[in-house]
């Protein structure tokens, strides 16, 4: 079972001119086994939503709640959230010089499971996950994300998703910067994850392209820090045809 419930979430960041409200009351619930897509223009607050759920210290929660299977996510530290079953595939994965992918993955897996993975099967699992994401086995000896191309970083995120096996995955623009082949590979990785029992996905994207490979149960249009409209997959088609125009405040 996994239900991620976001209720009236309000978030601000501190700026030179004082706090700035970015999320203005976000409400949505990802039920057991569901995939939700969030689509919205640049700067609408999509990454802010993703980071706030994951617990990035830059974002201050000013209201609302987030629960995972009833547990208060906002009361948890960043690593506790991950151990509770949340995973964030980042829009810009971070480089960690000197720390090998193999060491990183083993440390993360150990932290999440509370025990070290079985050595023999683990090496096979890692190589298998990398291979399915079209990353050859030399990647496991390279420093985390250092010198990876944009596409390799994204594929590495999905390899982690497969290995760490969270309850709910938040994918922040995992599709951007990918060529069509890489997009297919990443989508297949996400779909393999979705096939597992009861996994939730929050798929943040700017483009409808990825929704041809990953069919969401619910599509949310995200504008100016909140959900402007929700609907079925057909809502994506409407966005494809008309863009975000009609949701934006009538300027000028």
């Amino acid at each position: 079972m996994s239900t991620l419930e976001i209720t009236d979430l309000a978030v601000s960041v501190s700026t030179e001119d004082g706090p700035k409200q970015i999320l203005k009351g976000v409400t949505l619930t990802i039920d057991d086994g569901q995939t939700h897509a969030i689509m919205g223009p640049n700067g609408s607050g999509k990454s802010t939503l993703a980071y706030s759920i994951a617990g990035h210290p830059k974002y201050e929660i000013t209201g609302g709640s987030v629960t995972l299977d009833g547990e208060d996510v906002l009361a948890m530290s960043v690593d506790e959230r991950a151990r509770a079953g949340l995973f964030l595939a980042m829009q810009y994965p971070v480089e960690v010089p000197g720390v090998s992918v193999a060491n990183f993955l083993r440390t993360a897996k150990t932290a999440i499971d509370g025990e070290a993975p079985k050595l023999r099967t683990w090496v096979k699992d890692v190589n298998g996950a990398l291979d399915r994401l079209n990353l050859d086995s030399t990647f496991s000896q390279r420093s985390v994300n250092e010198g990876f191309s944009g596409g390799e970083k994204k594929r590495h995120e999905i390899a982690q998703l497969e290995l760490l096996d969270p309850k709910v995955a938040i994918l922040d623009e995992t599709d951007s910067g990918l060529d069509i082949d890489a997009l297919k590979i990443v989508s297949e990785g996400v779909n393999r994850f979705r096939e597992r029992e009861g996994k939730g996905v929050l798929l943040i994207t700017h483009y409808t392209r990825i929704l041809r490979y990953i069919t969401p149960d619910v599509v949310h249009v995200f504008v100016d820090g909140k959900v402007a409209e929700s609907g079925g997959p057909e809502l994506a088609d409407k966005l494809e045809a008309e863009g975000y125009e009609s949701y934006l405040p009538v300027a000028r």
Partner: protein
Amino acid sequence: MTVTAAAPARVESHLNPPPSYDLADHPAPTGREEVWRFTPLKRLRGLLDGEPSDACLEWDTTLPEGVTLSTVTAEEARALGELGPNERPAALAASLSGGAALLDVPAELECDEPVVIRLSGNTVEDLVWGQLLYRIGAHAKVTIVLVHTGAARYCAISTFVVGDGAQVDIVSVQDWDDDAVHLGRDAIRVGRDARVKHTSVSFGGDLVRLHANVEYDGPGGEAELLGLYFADAGQHLEHRLFADHNAPRTSSNVNYKGALQGQGAHTVWIGNVLIRKEAEGIETYEENRNLVLTDGCQADSVPNLEIETGEIEGAGHASATARFDDEQLFYLQSRGVSVEEARRLVLHGFFADLIRKIGVPFLEEQLTETVEKELAKNMLAAPGEFASALEGSA
């Protein structure tokens, strides 16, 4: 065959005064001198007064077959090619040591096992003057590891005369007790086409101030000066490097990395490089990176390049002091890793490439462990951990 003139003209430089054994040339510092301004003179505990003393460190040595250790007089050391003192502590050590230890690695000897010299002191009350001379014959290949432990007020002048085509790895580990004071000067003369790697590893001591100087005895010499240090609360760790490119087509590569934590932790890195007129076609790069783990620390980092010829292959430097990168920590934590473990990983990563570069396999693991222990350490942790870990495996 020697190409350079017997006595190349010395460039007058206040950062690197000409060598002299005459104490009158090295007056006691006031602390205002450029070369002393970072050093807390009071904490030298009167060392620079130059009182005679016949106290010694305890020596425990492991010598590979063919390598010999003997004692010579100070005069003999000079005749054998000792590089003269550029500052007061080294001059005092040369005049008060009462003789030098001479380590001889014969020409063409290739040692599979390292020379290991463990030096330990009993108490900081002991004032110890040290003089060491290492002669590495032409085309010899050797690794020399020095480990300093215990406590003393120790002041030493060391010279490495490296023959043509020799390959030498030198590692000096400072794992002193909390109250030790250590002033050391290592000077290296790199033979034609020889390759020398010198690594300083400093964890312990109240005040440690070390020079690693390199000059060349002909073209084609390569020097790599590496350093790794970890300063805790109240510690002063100072590393002063000088690459004197006095011969053509020589190279120097300096890479020092340090971490600091705790109130009053202070590190100093001075990287001086001089490229003389005759040093055409040389290459030099120096880099110092510091990771500041807590408030209340200070990392001073001063690269300095003097160039007298335009005909060089490459010269560059980099110096950076940073805190833990929040984004790196967040990324690791978002994968379930606790903040302590995340810090450990990032620190491990910070030092990893350098530890690998030291290239002394039996040290690698211990260094990694020591770095992690330092991080885990609270104010009361026992010093000397590095040396005891080393005992188990060497």
